[in-house]
């Protein structure tokens, strides 16, 4: 990350030169005392928004995501309709007071648009689109407070909300971030770790439970190939832990009724 500022000024370049993994002390104890592969405390609940066709709340540490599913409903504008299959659309939004700094202006921004796009791609790979031709399933995610890992929490919540809405799916998607901090591979980075001084990488992933395949893969920062593969392996195990929590919450929702 710091390498990008290399050419901007003399002052910056000295910082950038020292920003390599080996010049920083290894990251051995995590800021919040977690084990390297330990996730933050997770809470999941399905059926939290009565108006929606399906909904869920997913909390991981201080990141909280509400997801609501509306549909299948008729798709407008009509030229987007396909008699063979429907579409899903994710809409990601941070509440104006949910950032770690100043108020965020409400409304669409580039970041939210991109996250909405990668969320849609991550989820639609397990949705049976042929089950709702000409129609759309809208998935809205709102985050009241955040501390890193928002797109992953959003995807995990959205996947539960889709299941809660009874949308035909091959599987549940579980999402989490992995990465490395000064040479140490860790799971579920918090904001303090994402912003840690030195060499950091943040890799949000989403995993199909049954096949272990990845439907979301992004990366920021820097990482070696070895560490990347180690991080992805750690991510698969972390995603499985999230899957178990999602499954339990969905079972609770439907045993109640």
């Amino acid at each position, binding site marked *: 990350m710091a390498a990008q500022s290399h050419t901007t000024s003399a002052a910056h370049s000295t910082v950038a030169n020292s920003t390599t993994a080996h010049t920083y002390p290894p990251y051995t104890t995590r800021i919040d005392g977690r084990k390297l592969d330990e996730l933050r405390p997770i809470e999941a609940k399905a059926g939290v928004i009565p108006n929606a066709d399906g909904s869920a709340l997913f909390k991981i540490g201080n990141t909280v995501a509400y997801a609501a599913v509306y549909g299948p409903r008729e798709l407008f504008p009509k030229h987007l309709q396909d008699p063979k299959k429907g579409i899903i659309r994710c809409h990601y939004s941070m*509440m*104006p007071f949910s950032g770690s700094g100043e108020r965020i202006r409400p409304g669409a921004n580039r970041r939210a648009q991109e996250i909405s796009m990668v969320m849609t791609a991550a989820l639609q790979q397990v949705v049976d689109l042929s089950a709702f031709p000409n129609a759309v399933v809208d998935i809205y995610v709102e985050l009241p*407070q955040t501390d890193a890992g928002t797109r992953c929490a959003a995807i995990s919540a959205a996947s539960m909300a889709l299941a809660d809405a009874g949308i035909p799916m091959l599987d549940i998607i579980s999402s989490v971030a992995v990465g490395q901090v000064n040479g140490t591979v860790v799971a579920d980075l918090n904001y303090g770790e994402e912003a840690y001084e030195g060499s950091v990488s943040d890799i949000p992933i989403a995993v199909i439970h049954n096949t272990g395949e990845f439907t979301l893969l992004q990366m920021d920062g820097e990482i070696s190939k070895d560490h990347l593969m180690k991080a992805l392996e750690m991510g698969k195990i972390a995603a499985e832990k999230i899957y178990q929590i999602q499954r339990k919450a969905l079972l609770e929702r439907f045993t109640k009724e």
Partner: protein
Amino acid sequence: MALIMNKIAIAALAGQGKRLDNRTLTQYRTPIKVDTMISKTAEGSAKVQIGDTVVLAGVKLSIEKPYNDTADEGGIMVNAELVPLSSPEYESGPPTIKAVELARVTDRGIREAKAVDMKKLCIIPGEKAWFITVDVITLNDAGNLFDAAGLAVLAALKHARFPVVDEKTGAINYKEHTNKELPLIKEPLPITVYKINGKLMVDLTREEEKAYDARLTVASDKDGTISAMQKGGNAPLTINEISQMVDIAVDKARFLREQLKHI
């Protein structure tokens, strides 16, 4: 079709002093719940539930240059978003007139009441003052957003604490908060009273809202002082009705204010 039937049924029932869910005309739904600290990233926050209606409110503070005509004062703004997560009737995009009205009415109830002592928000006259932004986000719109939003905003303001300011740089450290509360000198609460088929009622469900003829939102303080009003709907109101509506609103504001006692 079902909607039209309901509209007729709701109006007919109202005429007899009855409602679809068996409440009396001036009875609120249950539960009524106010939770604070629902967002750790906000300077103050609250979640309000009235029946199935749920709204969140979050306070953010910033330091800005005061306006020229009020150089020794800070400022406050209330915004409301009817997010599509909260109802199949809402869509993504710029705020609709309904969202703008909700924001404006809630905003005026606080601002025009001078609920916050603006002079106490001033840091250096003409240079620096605190500005308060309160955002209301709907989680589930099952009717009566006006009352829920007003209660959530007041709860979030009561619960808010100033963030720490770095003495050297003057920058806000949003990660840490002081114990200092906002200079809230009044607690105005808006209550909306509706007229359906000649009868006055409160806390409408979404279905009932589609059947109203007129409504009047009245924000009032603890002592009954009125701080903002807004009439809506296409039917007119008599002076007699206005008088009754104000009485109901002041009475119900006292009732809802009870929920804020523990904050």
